[in-house]
């Protein structure tokens, strides 16, 4: 085996892949959220943000392809980790109680991950892979969120993302080896803060559109 695949294929290497791809998703989410916030500026602001974005042309395509690759890596590696971890304990405990380490976020990583995946596909089908020649992006979004079921699904998905990030954020620093007694408490707090920002920032948009806009 070549040194690279050997390093990346190890227990730590796989986590490294998760951490780097996860970090990039967090970066993506942050940028995406910043863009989406223009929706509070009204229809035009939002549409012009979308236009500017698409004006990036090939750059955007590269970013999209990058994200897609990272997503594949994150999902496939996550699936492999899940399988290996499950196999590492063939017989389960009759009583399994946490001694205080696990959090809801950490316990549910694979499950929140799958939900996020499903959501992302659903989300892309809704807003990306549609014929946008006759409709502005704002109209698309606004009409989708007229359906309360959509709103509920979106809000729920954002809570799920928040859960994933609540563990994922500090965890990625730990994986990268950046656990330092001076900084870790801050990183943990930032992680929780970020999850809240994602949940509220993204989650409030459909609610805003349904009830307010």
């Amino acid at each position: 085996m070549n040194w690279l695949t050997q390093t990346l294929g190890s227990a730590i290497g796989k986590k490294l892949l998760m951490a780097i791809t996860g970090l990039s998703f967090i970066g993506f989410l942050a940028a995406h959220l910043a863009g989406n916030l223009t929706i509070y500026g009204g229809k035009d602001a939002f549409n012009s943000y979308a236009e500017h974005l698409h004006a990036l042309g090939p750059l955007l395509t590269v970013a999209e392809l990058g994200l897609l690759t990272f997503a594949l890596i994150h999902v496939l590696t996550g699936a492999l980790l899940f399988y290996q971890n499950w196999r590492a304990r063939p017989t389960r405990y009759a009583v399994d109680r946490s001694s205080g380490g696990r959090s809801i976020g950490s316990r549910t990583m694979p499950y929140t991950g799958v939900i996020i995946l499903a959501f992302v596909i659903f989300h892309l089908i809704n807003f990306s892979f549609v014929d946008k020649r006759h409709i502005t992006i704002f109209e698309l979004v606004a009409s989708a969120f007229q359906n309360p079921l959509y709103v509920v699904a979106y809000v729920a998905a954002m809570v799920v993302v928040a859960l994933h990030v609540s563990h994922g954020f500090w965890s990625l620093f730990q994986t990268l080896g950046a656990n330092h007694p001076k900084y870790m408490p801050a990183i943990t707090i930032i992680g929780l803060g970020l999850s809240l920002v994602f949940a509220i920032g993204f989650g409030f948009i459909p609610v805003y559109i349904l009830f307010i806009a």
Partner: protein
Amino acid sequence: MTKTINITLKIWRQKGPEAKGRLETANAANISTDMSFLEMLDVVNEKLTVDGKEPIAFESDCREGICGSCGCVVNGEAHGPEKGTSLCQLHMRHFNDGDTIVIEPWRARAFPIIKDLIVDRAALDDLIRAGGYISVNTGSAPDANTLPVPQRDAELAFDAAACIGCGACIAACPNASAMLFVGAKVSHMALLPQGRPEAAKRALSMVGKMDDLAFGNCSNHKECEAVCPKEISITNIARLNREYIKAGFGSAEK
């Protein structure tokens, strides 16, 4: 204050590695709260023996929390409910009259059951064999004070070296991962100047071995740290990650 309590035990009994095991019920009557958990099991075993039954097989030796022989999962927690306490140091004063206690062996693919509560932890020796040492032949050492070691580093190295190799971290980890064990060993040696020359090689080979032995991966659940009788910190796992990443990408070592 000393008092006596009665408790019901549900204990994993398994005749051999291939046999099917199950939880069996036993009563522990008139248990003094000053007893240790293992002394309580001794009492149960004395009774089983006199009654013509086979006593429960479990391991222990030092009974003062240092040899790492003992360990079971008690009510779902490795080494029981007390923080920083190995099973032999857990006292019955932490239980109440009428309690039911479920006792199971460490469970992990890398730790096959031998009998009842005894598991085979040879995998931990295999990990050490893969690189948990500093290569120095007897007689070739320089004077001990030749290399000063900052007191803080020595203390941190000690914190990591305090590992007793009981395997609770693996038992408690939802993924049966050995990262705290390996992290502690790699940290112990990486923090000391004596251990630096082989640091890259050690990190690569111990992690490689860990994968071969069918331990799980680390999801940073922190259960290991929570059950460790020596309260070894997961900062040692972070250090292992660092050492490994450095070794994997930054060293010539393969």
